[in-house]
């Protein structure tokens, strides 16, 4: 009915009666369909949403972007073009930074976000410091380095605080 997109499955992050849902079970281990089919449970509030992007899907999206990046360089009407540096849609902006070794960092932000290039550079710095210099990290594998995650969180928090400050001072 209203505002529900038929493609959205009831996935982790969504909720029944405000309690978040985990796969096809509620947090207390009850199958969702049991709750939905039980007349005593009504009125029932169910919220749907775009599911969280799983690890596999992230890999697929990243490969898609890698190809799009390469194609955008190939079809260029001008000599020596890079791939997509920045892409804008109605709802978000994507910025991409490619290093000289071909590693790509891309970030999804809203239209108001500024200074994405420096941010990507700082993240590249974190990558070289906490990932590449980590003797236990295997190249080209998913990154599971605690220090990288911690410092990434710090940087993002800084950016968000600056956003709050900027929006407060400008309004």
């Amino acid at each position: 009915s209203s505002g529900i997109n038929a493609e959205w499955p009831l996935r982790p992050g969504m909720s029944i009666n405000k309690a978040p849902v985990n796969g096809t079970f509620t947090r207390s281990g009850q199958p969702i369909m049991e709750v939905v089919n039980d007349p005593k449970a009504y009125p029932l509030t169910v919220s749907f949403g775009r599911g969280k992007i799983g690890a596999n899907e992230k890999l697929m999206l990243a490969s898609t972007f890698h190809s799009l990046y390469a194609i955008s360089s190939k079809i260029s009407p001008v000599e020596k073009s890079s791939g997509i540096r920045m892409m804008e849609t109605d709802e978000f902006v994507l910025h991409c930074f490619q290093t000289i070794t071909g590693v790509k960092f891309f970030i999804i932000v809203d239209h108001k976000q500024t200074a994405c290039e420096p941010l990507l550079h700082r993240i590249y710095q974190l990558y070289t410091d906490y990932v590449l210099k980590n003797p236990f990290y295997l190249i080209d594998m998913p990154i599971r380095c605690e220090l990288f995650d911690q410092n990434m969180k710090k940087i993002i928090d800084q950016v968000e605080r600056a956003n709050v400050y900027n929006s407060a001072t400008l309004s």
Partner: protein
Amino acid sequence: MIYNLYIFNPDGQCLYYGEWNRTKASGLSSDEEYKLVYGMLYSLKPFVTRLSPATSDSFRYFKTDKYKLTMYETQSGTKFVINTATDWSSNVINNILHTLYKDVFVEFAVKNPMMSLSE
């Protein structure tokens, strides 16, 4: 500086290609290039939809370090794709594409009884 322009019908066939200041050929035949450009836009759609925080979203443009590709899609699925210099404003480009659609394409192509829109 406008480099080139593609017009695709909803099935992905290139109805029109125009070139003005293009300095680099893609190394592919025209047909292959049209398919590549359309394929890229076709793949971009689900990519954008999946990543978007909103329920429905559509791609507007992207920039590389040397050119800007803007897409204008009509309700009927016709796509106008234009490559310009990176400093062109989206407002200007969208006006051009919209005018192109309204005053040129619709007038002379769609309303032309001799023209078939699937080639």
